[in-house]
């Protein structure tokens, strides 16, 4: 089974990299960009009986390693 884990900074946590990208897009003349926040994507192949079991394992992976839940949120998508 394939899944995608998306890790993003929690709202309100300062994101200097996102700000830099936002500034670079503006200087490139890409119009209409109000703000940018950078996150991470993990494409994971996982052995699990069903989607619910996969979600449980992926949540464990996020809590233990993929996200620092002090400052990051995570979401799980399936293909």
């Amino acid at each position, binding site marked *: 089974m394939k899944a995608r884990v998306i890790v993003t900074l929690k709202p309100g*946590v*300062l994101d*200097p990299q996102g700000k*830099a990208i936002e500034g670079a897009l503006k200087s490139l003349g890409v119009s209409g960009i109000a703000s940018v926040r950078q996150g991470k994507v993990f494409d994971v192949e996982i052995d699990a009986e069903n989607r619910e079991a996969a979600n449980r394992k992926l949540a464990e992976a996020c809590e*233990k390693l*993929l996200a620092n839940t002090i*400052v990051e949120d995570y979401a799980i998508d399936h293909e």
Partner: protein
Amino acid sequence: MNSPLRAAVILFPGSNREGDAARALEQACRAPPAIVWHDDRALPEGTDLVVLPGGFSYGDYLRCGAIAARARIMDAVRAHAARGGLILGICNGFQILCEAGLLPGVLMRNTGRRFLCRMQHLRVENVTTPFTRGYALGQVIKVAIAHGEGNYTIDSAGLAELERSGRVAFRYCDAAGALGGAANPNGSMNDIAGVYNETFNILGLMPHPENLIDPLVGGIDGRGMFRGLTAA
């Protein structure tokens, strides 16, 4: 005569300040520390102090310190902490301790987005621990900083608890000891440069006291920490 402090420096792939830490410890202890590989399961018998050195463990992959915090030796480091053993995390070592949950908070990207490598003044905020008893309360020391992710961040309840319990070890300041503004190099909350755990046997700090132990390199303000650690 007390037996000398027995120190162990943990070496992760990508650590690069282990030699500096070892030199500072050897100067203070008059014996070289053990160097322990990240994949080992145990610390040398009788280890009093574990040092997690600076560097870029695992290339800062995922998040600074995230992979090292899950290395095999960390179970032994955790057990050492639970026994009340001393742990000092410097720079990447501080990041590792936060990622391991042994210290609260997280080190985020510097607000100015730059890697900073220069001298920095610190104010010593608590001198009742083995790490800082070699200093005077409020003393301003000048040491090196070298980091891109040193912006100490914690939730408001956690920050209030650190302040209430005297767990802020060092704050960034100017030469006169004044806080704030340009004296804060990386945006750290409350100018925090280093923090203790609840029981004050673990210290993490971003600056490098281990680099300021020899007049040849511009100062000896780091000696107080290692002298304090080795004083019985």
